[in-house]
């Protein structure tokens, strides 16, 4: 009985420690205050998308509902970390910056699919492909005409 109680206490302690440690580690490199994190390493992940993935066009490019559906998906799955308007937070970077807005839809789709698990960005392949493309449409719709590149890079 004593052994069971000890094991239970140890397990709960480990669980609590994992929560606290995971959070302190995630906030360790973040600046003080509410400034969103700006970590070039995270944005550089977009450049790692293979050319084939980068050049994939968004199959929902002409879908009239894609941006609205993407906005709902964003609020449900992304806003907690990236902020309600994708402005970024202490947990995750802004998606309004040129690094993201000038990325091709294919590169954004690739990043959503693969995540950046070492930097706390989860793998989002649990969302079906069309939903990930809807998210890409929404994210690209935030950038304004000055920076957005909403079509794949033409092949040389």
């Amino acid at each position, binding site marked *: *009985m004593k052994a*069971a*109680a000890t*094991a*239970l206490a140890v*397990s*709960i302690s*480990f*669980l609590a420690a*994992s*929560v*606290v*440690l*995971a*959070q*302190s580690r*995630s*906030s360790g490199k*973040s600046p*003080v205050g509410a400034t969103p994190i700006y970590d070039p390493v995270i944005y550089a992940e977009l450049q790692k998308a293979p050319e084939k993935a980068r050049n994939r066009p968004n199959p929902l490019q002409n879908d009239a*509902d894609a941006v*609205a*559906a*993407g906005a*709902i*998906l964003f609020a*449900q*799955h992304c806003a*907690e970390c990236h902020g309600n308007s994708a402005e970024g937070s*202490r*947990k995750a970077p802004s998606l309004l910056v040129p690094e993201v807005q000038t990325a091709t839809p294919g590169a954004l789709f690739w990043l959503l*699919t*693969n*995540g*950046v*698990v*070492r*930097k*706390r*960005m*989860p*793998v989002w*392949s*649990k*969302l*079906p*492909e*069309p*939903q990930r493309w*809807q998210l890409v449409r929404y994210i690209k719709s935030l950038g304004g005409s000055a920076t957005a590149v909403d079509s794949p890079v033409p092949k040389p």
Partner: protein
Amino acid sequence: MASFCRLVLLGFFSFSLSAVFSPPPALAQERPYFVAYDHYLEEPGNLEIEYFSTYGIQRGGNNFHAFWTECEYGATAWWTTEFYLDGQTTFHDSTVFTGFRWENRFRLLKREHFINPVLYVEYENKNGADKILKEVEGHDVEADFLVSNAEAQKEHIHEVELKLILSSTFKGWNFTENTLAAKNLSNSPWEFGYALGASRPLALKASAKRCTFCPQNFIGGVEMYGGLGDRHNFGLHDTSHYLAPVLAWNLPSGWTLRISPGFGLNDISHRFLMRWGVSREITGFGSMVSRLFGGHQ
């Protein structure tokens, strides 16, 4: 021990209530499986509180209702940790607390591949009255459940369980295969088991309006699980197997409901198991805890 467990259960109940009613919920995109696991882990900092039930038809004995509560936390994007408390009621017998489990799942690869491996490591501290059938291993059969609760509780089980989860997503379908190896730490042989699953949302595109009954909120599928004997007698001989359709309904409020009727595939399996569960995902739980301890988030 009983009063200690009551205290722990009360603590968990209060904790669950406070967690459920304070922070903002997120739409969960939860797997429908009860036994099989896919390669998707909890999002970092999110907590999912879950309650599951299994109602079992017992031949030659009393039917039972086994239940467990589960707290699943995304420690990082590659590590999810879970804590379970288990109990059961055997009709015309008694209701007993049957133990606890601490489970960890680790994503092994950085990126998404055609097959995605996840390592599962679990410690179980339970007694012989455990009937949740969260997995079937070794030579687990229906007749094992005929023992009275008073007698079964005398058996204490300390077990380590390892699983290799191999999961793929293809055209909206998830296919998963889990291989299980479990070792009772009190000098018993390694036991083996398996679970297979396939599931798909009823619609792949999201609706442009918030909705409760949209087909993309429902995920249907099927899972199959069973034992594979032990180190001395590996194989299908004297093992039980189940086939179970599964359905999950992810509500926009953050709740997920699951249901699964399971059918025994041979004479030594339970003929019928009815499972259901309810869970809620709490976003930003880690940040909330961090703030409690003076963190900035």
